[in-house]
């Protein structure tokens, strides 16, 4: 039991060390030797838990995406319209990324690996599937334009938001993520929401983007 707890603590130290390095100098520049040194561990200890640098990256992607997907899921409420949950969901995701360094590193790693790492590929897939569910519900509830292609909405919004996250991360270290998400949605909304609903959702978006989440 004690050994297991100690082993878990070592694994944690490796991940935390790698996360800090990836967020400071990027994945390519972070060598295994740097990760070991920062974690104050031996090479043996690292190899006991991870067979390679990419295995560390995979663990970070999985943990970070769990946080981000968990935030997205928790933002959906059955009593509110799906389109509200879509807008609200992106701000909850923004706040989750801002608050969590593992999630930030995971986002960087997703970009580094793209489809070449199975965990990264799977993460994009799950995000897309869960987002598509909300978009389809919004179509069904009549908030999206009737002739719209739901798959195209999913692809366009997801790509725009991931792009906004990339630029925010590159330009301001993620500090203006909320604002970039808000602006991107502002431009996208009129193309997808019905004329009847657009006024309401502009206001809903404006309110959401100004809100500071109460600490839970």
């Amino acid at each position, binding site marked *: 039991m004690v050994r297991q707890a100690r082993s878990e603590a070592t694994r944690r130290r490796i991940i935390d060390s790698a996360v800090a390095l990836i967020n400071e100098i990027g994945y390519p520049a972070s060598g295994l030797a740097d990760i070991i040194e920062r974690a104050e561990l031996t090479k043996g200890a690292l190899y006991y838990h991870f067979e390679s640098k990419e295995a560390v990256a995979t663990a970070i992607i999985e943990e970070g995406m769990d946080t981000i997907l968990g935030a997205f899921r928790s*933002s959906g*409420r059955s*009593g*509110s319209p799906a389109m509200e949950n879509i807008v609200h969901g992106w701000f909850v995701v923004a706040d989750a990324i801002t608050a969590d360094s593992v999630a930030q590193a995971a986002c960087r790693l997703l970009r580094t690996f793209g489809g070449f790492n199975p965990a990264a590929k799977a993460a994009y897939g799950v995000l897309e599937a869960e987002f598509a569910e909300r978009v389809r519900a919004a179509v069904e509830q009549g908030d999206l334009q009737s002739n719209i292609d739901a798959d195209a909405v999913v692809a366009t919004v997801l790509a725009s938001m991931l792009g906004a996250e990339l630029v925010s991360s590159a330009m301001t270290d993620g500090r203006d993520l909320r604002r970039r998400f808000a602006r991107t949605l502002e431009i996208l909304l009129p193309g997808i929401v019905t004329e009847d609903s657009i*006024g*309401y959702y502009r206001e*809903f978006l404006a309110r*959401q983007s100004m*809100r500071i*989440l109460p600490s839970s």
Partner: protein
Amino acid sequence: MTEQADRRADATRQQILQAAAHEFATRPYSQVNLDDIVARADVTKGALYFHFRSKHALANAVIEHRAERGWATVEQLRTNGLSGLETTIDVAYVIAVSDIGEADARAGLNLLEAVGRFDGLQAKVLDVWVNGFAALTRRAIGEGDVVERVDPEQTARLLVSMYLGLRQTSNLDEPESFIRDLESLWMLVLPGFANPEKLGYFAGFIRRRSALAVKNAVPLRANNL
């Protein structure tokens, strides 16, 4: 008692509470028969009396059980990143939908009126609701959605009274008309405390929730078939 026996006793207690909620939700207090509860819960009368010394004690337990669960839902909504007034409206609709479709919610509110009045339980439960809505209203004033001249306590009291009154004048077994009545009441009281500039937005907010609630609400009787 061993841990296992403890767990079994707890499971039995839950079974009885559930069966009682069903009976109290579908019948007036005076017509609820302990034998029906015992039969529905599939326990002995002795087991029932081991956990609850009377029908009255059982009714109080149903009220308290529901009050706890109800507040857990509200706590969840409260930290969801919506404004004070948006949360207030969300809570109102969540209460209505569960009152329409969930036996323990319906029973809790039925009993609050029937038996809660006599030993302070009603005052205690309603106080929690009034304080909760008052806190949300105070937040809404700070956020500019509710006008400053409004007294949060009085607004909270009005909202609670409005809902309890609606339960008497409308029919929970007809979900669509109940929710439409709830919507009309909200539209009517909203200008009394909301910022006039935001009435249009909140009208949309309420209409959208009504439409969804009509779709989501499953009447209690259909639930039990």
